[in-house]
């Protein structure tokens, strides 16, 4: 449920859905996000620059020359978007992952912290039906969940300065994919050859907030010969 709408400066609003970080809360955020994007497309809403969903909030940035916060807030309040169905907008994506020890940089730490064997960890990771909460940090980088309690572990004490593109990490109940080479503090469980982002495409990101993801285990040989379309 949308709990509160607040202004951010003179050209933004925050739509707050409460403090809980859960799929249930996030689905509500994404319903409003989809509704805003549709309203932009159908020209019912003008002047929107960006609309950014996160776990429990949708932040909307607008062009003050074209729309005022009061009009935007009234527009949101006067429309019922809560009945929209996410599956109509969102998709299931299968992402190949290679768990080879060359790529799974934190096997030891994962085993020590979870008291499970890496094989058991991989099984549980493959079984999880991930939900994309949000995308950000770097282009195309998804924050997904939820991992089962038995796989929840903390961030690395010292983040790595550089992680290879495609590294798949876990922290707490979340799983991410480093869509570009970048620094990072997540526990690396494997690597995907699948390109998540290409700015030159009309739809640059393979994943959207609200999509679901399942990983598919591939061998190192399949990893090395994988071709992105």
């Amino acid at each position: 449920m949308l709990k509160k709408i607040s202004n951010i400066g003179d050209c933004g609003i925050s739509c707050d859905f409460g403090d809980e970080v859960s799929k249930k809360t996030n689905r509500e955020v994404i319903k409003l996000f989809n509704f805003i994007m549709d309203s932009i497309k159908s020209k019912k809403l003008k002047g929107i620059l960006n609309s950014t969903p996160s776990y429990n909030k949708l932040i909307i940035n607008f062009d003050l020359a074209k729309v005022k916060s009061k009009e935007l807030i009234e527009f949101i309040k006067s429309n019922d978007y809560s009945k929209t169905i996410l599956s109509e907008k969102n998709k299931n994506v299968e992402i190949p992952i290679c768990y080879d020890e060359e790529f799974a940089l934190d096997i030891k730490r994962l085993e020590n912290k979870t008291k499970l064997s890496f094989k058991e960890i991989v099984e549980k990771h493959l079984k999880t039906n991930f939900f994309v909460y949000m995308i950000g940090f770097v282009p195309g980088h998804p924050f997904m969940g939820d991992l089962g309690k038995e796989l929840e572990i903390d961030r690395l004490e010292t983040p790595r300065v550089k992680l290879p593109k495609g590294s798949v990490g876990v922290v707490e109940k979340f799983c991410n994919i480093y869509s570009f080479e970048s620094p990072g503090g997540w526990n690396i469980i494997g690597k995907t050859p699948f390109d998540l982002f290409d700015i030159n495409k009309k739809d640059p990101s393979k994943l959207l907030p609200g999509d679901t993801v399942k990983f598919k285990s591939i061998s190192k040989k399949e990893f090395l010969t994988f071709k992105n379309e």
Partner: protein
Amino acid sequence: MSSYFKILRPGINSTFQDLGRFQLQHLGVAPSGCMDKFLFSISNKLVGNNSSEGALEFAYQGPLLELVGESALVAVSGRINFNITKKNGDLIKGKPNESFLIQDGDKIDILSTIDSAYGYLSVAGGFKLKEVNGSISTLVRARIGPKDGDKLKIGEKIFLNDISSSGVKNKIKLHFEKNNTIRVIKGLQFNYFSNKSREDFFSKEYKVTRLTDRMGMRLEGEKLENIVSTNIKSEGIIKGSVQIPGDGQPIILLSDHPTIGGYPKIANIITADYDKLVQKTPGSKIKFKMVDLTIAESAFRQYVRKF
């Protein structure tokens, strides 16, 4: 063949920018775009371009460029110290905020910005650049934009769009404000800070540090004490947000800001004062003044009247 600028010196941080690349922040792409919207629009206006045409933005020391080809109408906007060297060797002192014609073999040498950070160079008809997702703005951190999303490089050729006539010379008298007051609206997590820190934020001066670029401006001053939590659940960022990380020193997020972030925000810069803010150089002091939305909106109406 079309004319082009040959880059003999790229300058410190020269990038092509327009008004920004939007509708992609939910995919992790910051809007980028020109830092000083007013000066950006002035440089376009001076050469008769559409106000959203891409321009070359430079910071502090700008580029040295040589024109190869047909004569071109050019303008440099801002508080800028620059020279034009004619093909025959004559040196002419450049006049900013006034368009001028240059010929084949002439060089424009942008030496420095004066008491300011950013300036713009526009050419009549615009630069011939490949749009990336609807914009020629450059986001160097993610390598998004024309010329592989990178800064200007030495030896590069920047082609100009062909135009039938180069337009008429024009000049605009600009008035640059000296005052250091930046108006803000209370941020989403304003109440995370102690009463003393809320007062300090609006009464003490904050110094712009060297750790300032297109992504953010780090300030130094009275430490701001967070009494709730120094981390929040990551949420979407809007440019002009003043966030306070654990060390209590403000960082103002600018055009290349991260798309999401987890630090509490004490305030947001009003749109009308953003250009003034980004022109503050390291060492300068600023003071924040709280206003409400009504004042911010009326300040914005005044701001757009300048364009």
